[in-house]
């Protein structure tokens, strides 16, 4: 007998069931998964943008409003100048055609590598409940851009801020239909508290996360 068969048989024997599952058991499980009901959720303020902003700031994410995507290069240039960070960055391919050079920035639309210091991304959506960004991996949404650089700048449309994770799954089922290879929820800069429970920002991922909200 294989390890698989042994383990499954042991589970059923321990629970006093016949070794082969009955169709009724399988139907029950399949039906529950098909319905995927939600459990009770906590209250989240009706003003999702305000809640997102508040929670994100709590996580040491900085948040700024801009009028449109066309303003992105200017906002990024301002932020990098203010933080005294380098003016070179990588971005998701969708943003590569913006006028970066016009703002004195050198931005390439490709996945990040170890030496890149600033990564500019979008987000699949954002969660108001916790101030969280949701990223789905794919051809044009490399995961490394929000991970390897020391600074992560994300553009989020206010219309894509949902109340909680349950609503994000609804969007994912509707917009993508299937699970991408990687779904990453990002809640602020990477951190560790392993040494004396002292919270320190910038463990293995970014030291800072800056969110730019567009309408």
């Amino acid at each position: 007998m294989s390890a698989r068969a042994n383990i499954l048989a042991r589970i059923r024997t321990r629970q006093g069931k016949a070794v082969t599952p009955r169709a009724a058991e399988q139907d029950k499980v399949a039906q529950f998964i098909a319905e995927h009901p939600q459990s009770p959720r906590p209250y989240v303020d009706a003003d999702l943008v305000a809640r997102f902003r508040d929670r994100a700031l709590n996580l040491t994410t900085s948040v700024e409003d801009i009028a449109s995507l066309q303003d992105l290069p200017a906002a990024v240039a301002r932020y990098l100048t203010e933080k005294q960070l380098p003016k070179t960055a990588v971005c998701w391919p969708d943003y590569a055609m913006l006028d970066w050079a016009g703002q004195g920035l050198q931005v390439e639309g490709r996945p990040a590598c170890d030496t890149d210091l600033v990564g500019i991304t979008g987000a699949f959506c954002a969660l108001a409940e916790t101030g969280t960004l949701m990223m789905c991996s794919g051809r044009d949404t490399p995961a490394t851009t929000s991970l390897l650089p020391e600074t992560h700048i994300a553009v989020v449309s206010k219309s894509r801020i949902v109340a909680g994770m349950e609503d994000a799954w609804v969007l994912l089922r509707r917009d993508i239909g299937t699970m991408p290879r990687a779904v990453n929820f990002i809640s602020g800069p990477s951190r560790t508290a392993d040494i004396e429970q002292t919270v320190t920002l910038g463990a293995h991922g970014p030291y800072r996360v800056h969110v730019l909200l567009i309408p």
Partner: protein
Amino acid sequence: MHFKARVGEKLADVKLQSALKKLQGNFVKGRADRITELDNFHEIRDAAAAIRDRTLANLDVYLDTFERNAKARGTVVHWAETHDDVNRIVREIAAQHGVRKVIKSKSMVTEECALNDALIDAGLEVVETDLGEYILQLAQEPPSHIVAPVVHKTRDEVSDLFAEKHNAPRLTDIPALCREAREKLRPHFLSADMGVSGANFVIAETGSTLIVTNEGNGRLVTTLPKVHVAITGIEKVVATLEDVTTLLRLLPRHGTGQSITNYISVTTGARREGDSDGPEHFHVILVDAGRTKLLGGDMQEMLRCIRCGACMNHCPVYQSVGGHAYGWVYPGPMGSVLTPTYVGLQNAGDLPNAATLCGQCHVACPVKIPLPELLRKLREQQFELKLKPWFEMYALRAWGWLAQHSWLYSMTTRLQARLLKSAADDRGMIRSLPFAGGWTDRRDLPAPEGRTFRELYRAASKNG
């Protein structure tokens, strides 16, 4: 495994005691603060326990569903009956893909298996990348907490360790130490061929594995190397994305006092056609190694455990002695239940008694595991299997017999109360007791007032 023998040593360890104090402040207060963010916390907690029970009740069907959906996305699913099987499977995967260097994110299952040693013996380089686990790998020590593995070490000890092992100037500032580790570990992330992670949950609906991390090392481990192996216990399966969402509201709040961890990474299959990053091969190992022994009996509720560590953070015994005193991978109340089941009650010594049964662990548990009840059941089993010392067995039997004979019990307790009163000094305290030094060696025992409860009750009723 000699819990009692280790306790004295740990209580006398000044550095350990100072390290343990911080845990209570941050994790205990953090949990209390964060659960107030949930207006319907008790409803959510009830739902979380029900979610865990749902998959445990039909565990085989949910595991089969997970496997089917994972395979459909190109994941290779392995089943391991024992810890040795896990080690063998990982070595085989490594050999199959020509792996030389393995990077790991924190995984308690691999601690159970002693996977690192098994891989090193097979000639592989293994690097732990969670900061705490990295420190422990350098120090060649086991973790002492399932969430904060290096909680027993002070900053000074880490400074000394890094200076020695990195052959670098001694840094004392915590952010500088963290940067030193980041810079040492980044090249390993970029050059490793295999990433090994655990999984906080596996999701039947989508065939996905999920990890929660703060440092980002978990994301690197599951993104950069060409092979990703996720290893987890069979009990970690949940039904749907909705179910895991509810558990994720409780796990970080109870684990580290955070509303949410920095990263929650859900991985489903290997890199797809056109994907710009991700591993080319994705393997999942589902591990039994003792878990099925908990199913179907009085202990099944233990399998709800989501490994948050709240029970140990809130335990007065853990708070006093730390994790190493427990002798195996899992410390605190959950460890005192798991270790006897996994390694055998006869090998677990005093662990079921390493609790005051104060009930804090039950109150703090996000999935409502009745830990004190389970510990009490293990104590009963110890008695039935005659694993207690002979004098304890006789004492318990004698007490049991006495308690069944009311007049004799009444007489004995009356005699005892008076004897103890007569042994008191002028402050009403007993300084030493023959054969019961445990009560008086470190402090004085307040003497009884002279009459038993039953006598007082009878007198009060008469005066009525």
